[in-house]
């Protein structure tokens, strides 16, 4: 049985639950007094300002912030107490876009997307659109949380869904510390269920990838090295197989920002991000090929900008008025959190980019 770690910032009525307070915090202090360069200043140095989109490849849809977990570092501030859920009406608007988009990847995220009551209907309808890569970001524990979710591996298989799941470490202690007591054991059980229907096997078309994000105030190490370690331990100790590991940097927003401030790590962490700035990661950063749709249909440059309520700088701002050509002509909205995607080998929902 998994035990929840905490409540969402929203439930706790924390100041940092407000997006504008987060943006304000990231613009003040060391960035306001010039101790560290703002992200805009930094990318001006390499003539990469303003950041512009390239060809749209990934449409990422957040179907709601409700989740069965309350992970310590969640950038969505997701949890069971979040009631923001995409309606079937908005899903229908999304489906129109999915049928006509030039994007090759559809990426469903949350919260736990499976908790949306219309999730299965949406997957069934979206899978008819012939999108090349159809991703569902599953937190794993949802599969074993309740009997009604036990058949999810079969359901994913039926619709040829590419499963991408979070796994912060191959040890129980580190995983449970970040994601709640019992999460590691439940995740292992769910991974076995996915393996049992064919997910993650070498050569299998049923893709199962894991996402690693650090459990504390440090950056992820080399993705390839981490993947090797994950594969070794998960295979030897649990007989579990998966395809790729995506190493993702924690961005200093929402609950992770709250954690950085509370643990007196904020300044050091921002220094680490700025020092690790990699100009070649900027040209491949995910907002240049992704559009993010929120539960209520608004459009954002990425899931992080969605959480900071920074809507796209375009006259088209909502899925109901979607126009790919107009959207592709926008400037991407940036702030200091963007350093998280350009540090070291870069970071995106698909892992390293440089």
């Amino acid at each position: 049985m998994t035990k929840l770690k905490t409540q969402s910032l929203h439930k706790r009525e924390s100041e940092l639950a407000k997006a504008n307070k987060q943006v304000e915090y990231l613009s003040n202090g060391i960035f306001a007094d010039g101790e560290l360069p703002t992200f805009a200043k930094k990318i001006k140095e390499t003539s990469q300002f303003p950041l512009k989109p390239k060809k749209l490849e990934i449409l990422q849809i957040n179907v709601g912030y409700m989740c069965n977990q309350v992970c310590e570092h969640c950038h969505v501030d997701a949890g069971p107490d979040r009631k923001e859920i995409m309606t079937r009406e908005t899903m229908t608007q999304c489906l129109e876009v999915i049928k006509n988009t030039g994007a090759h990847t559809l990426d469903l995220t949350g919260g736990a997307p499976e908790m949306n009551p219309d999730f299965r209907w949406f997957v069934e309808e979206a899978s008819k659109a012939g999108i090349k890569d159809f991703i569902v970001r599953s937190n794993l524990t949802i599969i074993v949380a309740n009997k009604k979710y036990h058949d999810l591996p079969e359901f994913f298989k039926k619709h040829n869904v590419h499963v991408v799941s979070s796994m912060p470490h191959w040890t129980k202690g580190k995983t449970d510390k970040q994601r709640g007591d019992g999460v590691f054991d439940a995740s292992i059980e769910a991974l076995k269920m996915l393996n049992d229907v064919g997910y993650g096997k070498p050569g299998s078309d049923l893709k199962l990838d894991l996402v690693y994000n650090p459990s504390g105030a440090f950056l992820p190490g080399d993705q390839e090295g981490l993947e090797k370690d994950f594969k070794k331990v998960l295979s030897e100790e649990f007989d579990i197989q998966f395809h790729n590991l995506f190493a993702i940097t924690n961005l200093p927003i929402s609950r992770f920002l709250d954690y950085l401030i509370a643990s007196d790590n904020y300044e050091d962490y921002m220094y680490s991000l700025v020092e690790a700035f990699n100009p070649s990661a900027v040209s491949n950063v995910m907002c240049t090929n992704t559009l993010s749709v929120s539960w209520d249909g608004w459009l954002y440059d990425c899931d992080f900008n969605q959480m900071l309520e920074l809507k796209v700088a375009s006259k088209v701002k909502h899925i109901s008025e979607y126009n790919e050509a107009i959207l592709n002509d926008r400037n991407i909205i940036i702030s200091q959190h963007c350093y998280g995607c350009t540090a070291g080998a870069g970071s995106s929902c698909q892992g390293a980019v440089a």
Partner: protein
Amino acid sequence: MSYYDPKDLRKFGNITDWSEELGTKFFDYYGKVFEEGALSAREKSLIALAVAHTEMCPYCIDAYTKDGLQRGITKEEMMEAVHVGAAIKSGASLVHGVMMMNKVNKLDG
């Protein structure tokens, strides 16, 4: 106020300001040492952590604890590495006891 300021570690690169050639050579060498080789970068990180403790260098301890976490090295592995350093350090003291024994045997044997 300690003589050591954790923020000084951020200024380590400034060493090149007053002797660019030597500073640059040092950092090139340093970077090369920690690349994957006959030993993995992960193994080198643990060696560095152990030596950081025997040298009692606060900057190095900060740096290689963080480096270890980034590489997914567990706290149990890190503590074992520190014990390796401590064992060599205490062994190095204790093995000199043989000199004391030699002297006692010579003078009073």
